[in-house]
């Protein structure tokens, strides 16, 4: 069991380090802003916890290796529990403890024991429910009937709600209220339940049928073959098709996430308005934050395409076209998503005062060009440890620092446009140069999930 936990930490050490630094910074420097830490909830469980484990479980080779090891399902399940709940909880305790002691000696305004305790309880009790809900989602190979699909959908919703509720944690569960007490009780119960359910979770994941080609009759028909795709050979192909594919996928993904995120935000706002004195507000800051987070999330579509550089470069098309598609398709999609964001916000919150230009002026353009600047890095190195750590650091740090620096970066729109255009153009030129000059770009690629080759059909 210990070996499995240590192996997990060894492979994900960089994310643990990044998260620890970010969390310590938030707890340490968030407290002077508001001594009860109520504005400083760091969603550690969004980066550590079962979210990491889910990345591991996507790799069938890891499951195959574990199955062949002389360890029981109980040992594997409990090792996963320790990696996703136990160790992150202990880490959070250590961070809060250190900050508490440090603030006694060095802080201008010492962190109160009660604030630290609330912060610790609130954050630590999120790991267990997260693990529990995730463990109840059937693996893809087990989606045999309507019931398992419905359960999968339900627990996926609960899992996502647990994960993203952390952002407004103190507003949903203000300390000393009934909501807080309910949270502590439910969180404790689900943490205990997750420990006892870990064995069944491991059994289900390790023994479920693996994803197979369309010949696997245990899959629902819609999963085996996409009948719509039978007609997909028709129509115009070439680079335009790649541009369109990236653009449409990013816009659809962005719109879906906006609607889900905005809807969840609307429900949360209604709940806090009804049951709590700390109602959350749907202001410009929230809209900017949501949009900027979206840029990073939808960029994944481009990264997927960037990981197929070898294939793209075998085609009769100049490097500038490949680089142009990888850079400008996401730029176009992000601009459209910004427009959608204001429309969705206007629709959900009946607030028509925001427009895309206002978002761009408040840092969205800069954030967008910063996100695009990741493309040449992925072109150069694939999604290896360095690129993965860099992207995660930017995902965590980009939107947060943009909000913190907003007061200091009072650029006018033209300055934003010029800087952003410069960054995007640099990304394009760098990508083109890498495609024609760098051999590393075409070497077999490893990803940050433990060394599986990217770009290799396996």
């Amino acid at each position, binding site marked *: 069991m210990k070996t499995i936990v240590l192996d997990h930490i060894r492979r994900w050490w960089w994310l643990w380090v990044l998260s620890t630094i970010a969390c310590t910074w938030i707890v340490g420097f968030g407290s002077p802003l508001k001594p009860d830490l109520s504005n400083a909830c760091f969603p550690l469980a969004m980066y550590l916890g079962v979210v990491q484990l889910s990345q591991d479980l996507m790799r069938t080779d890891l499951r195959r290796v574990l199955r062949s090891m002389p360890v029981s399902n109980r040992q594997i399940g409990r090792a996963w529990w320790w990696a996703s709940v136990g160790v992150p909880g202990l880490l959070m305790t250590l961070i809060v403890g250190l900050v508490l002691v440090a603030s006694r000696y060095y802080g201008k305004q010492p962190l109160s024991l009660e604030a630290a305790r609330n912060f610790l309880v609130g954050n630590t009790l999120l790991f267990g429910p997260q693990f529990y809900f995730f463990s109840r989602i059937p693996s893809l190979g087990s989606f045999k009937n309507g019931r398992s699909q419905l359960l999968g959908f339900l627990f996926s919703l609960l899992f996502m709600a647990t994960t993203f509720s952390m952002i407004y944690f103190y507003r949903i569960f203000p300390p000393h209220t009934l909501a807080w007490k309910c949270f502590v009780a439910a969180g404790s119960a689900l943490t205990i339940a997750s420990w006892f359910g870990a064995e069944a979770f491991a059994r289900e994941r390790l023994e479920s049928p693996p*994803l*197979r*080609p*369309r010949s696997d009759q245990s899959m629902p028909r819609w999963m*085996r*073959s*996409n*009948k*719509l*795709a*039978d*007609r*997909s*050979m*028709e*129509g*115009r*192909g*070439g*680079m*335009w*098709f*790649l541009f369109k*594919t990236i653009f449409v996928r990013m816009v659809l993904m962005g719109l879906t996430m906006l609607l889900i995120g905005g809807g969840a935000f609307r429900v949360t706002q209604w709940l806090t308005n009804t049951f709590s004195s700390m109602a959350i507000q749907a202001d410009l800051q929230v809209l900017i934050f949501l949009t900027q987070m979206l840029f990073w999330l939808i960029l994944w579509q481009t990264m*997927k*395409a960037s*990981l*197929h550089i*070898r*294939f793209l*470069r*075998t*085609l*009769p*098309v*100049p490097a500038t076209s490949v680089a142009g598609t990888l850079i400008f398709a996401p730029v176009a999609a992000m601009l459209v998503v910004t427009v959608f964001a204001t429309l969705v916000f206007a629709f959900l919150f009946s607030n028509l005062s925001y427009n895309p230009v206002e978002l761009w002026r408040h840092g969205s353009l800069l954030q967008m060009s910063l996100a695009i600047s990741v493309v040449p890095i992925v072109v150069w190195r694939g999604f290896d440890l360095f690129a993965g750590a860099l992207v995660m650091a930017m995902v965590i740090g980009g939107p947060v620092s943009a909000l913190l620096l907003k007061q200091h970066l009072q650029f006018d729109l033209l300055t934003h446009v010029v800087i952003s255009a410069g960054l995007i153009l640099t990304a394009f030129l760098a990508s083109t140069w890498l495609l*024609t*000059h*760098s*051999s590393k*770009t*075409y070497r*077999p690629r490893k990803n940050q999930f433990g060394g599986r*080759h*990217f*770009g*290799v*059909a*396996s």
Partner: protein
Amino acid sequence: MNDNAIEIRGLVKTYFPFRLGALDLTVPRGAIYGLIGPNGAGKTTILDLIYGMGRNEEGEIRVLGFDHQRDAVALKRRTSYVSPELNFDVWGSVGRAIRFVRGFYPTWDDAYCKDLMKSFDLDAGARIAWLSFGARTKLSVLLALAHRPELLLLDEPTTGLDAVSKQQLFAELLRIVEDGERTVLISSHNLTDIERFADHVGMIRHGQLLLEGRMDEVVDRFRLAEFFTENNAEFANRDGFIVVKRNENRWQAVLDQERGVADWLQKSGAQNLSLTRMTLEDLFVALAREKEAV
């Protein structure tokens, strides 16, 4: 018209500590050329450089008369590249991948594409992520063949293919070169296939071309020599002579008949010398392990 499909002269590329070249390689037009060598010899690097994936430090590559960098687009329009490291997952389904690639080639043959889909048992609606390794290789071959390229570069194309699929693949390759105008350069570890289907062969090791020529001439040039010695006579590797095995006074070695080593052996005390024809695989193993030999 130039008689050679590929001409490589003085090619040098360094991936520290590996160095390819300086390397000269010639692939005649209309040939099936097998490029063989141990792992890490530089086979994929050569194919990559031909296709402009990375830059050579020195040397010149001409493909179908085109400069491989200056005329990269024109060159790629008339050639194809197949490798197990090509991945089409981003397209989701087989049909979408075909649609994407078809858009680049005016010479794309839809009827031939459908024939190949049937022959390779590929369904347009099949999800690429769920295809087996062999089926992905078949998709890669299909995308490469359907525009009827003048030159086909195949990097380990038989990896993951079963015997039937391998036969299908080579049958298609033979059909391609039937008219004598189309050329296939195939890099593979499967030497039985190479010996059976290729008419030219080039062997590289540590980034250097060891030998190159027509398959029958290359295989005919080398012999496995078995002989005995007396008085503890010693033989070490020399030009055209590689010791494969030694058991007391009984020796096995590879002889290059063009170097006149047989005469030298007999003069040096080798007795009961017998020479037998070698397979390409035996020759490959002997040459690839030359440094480690006794």
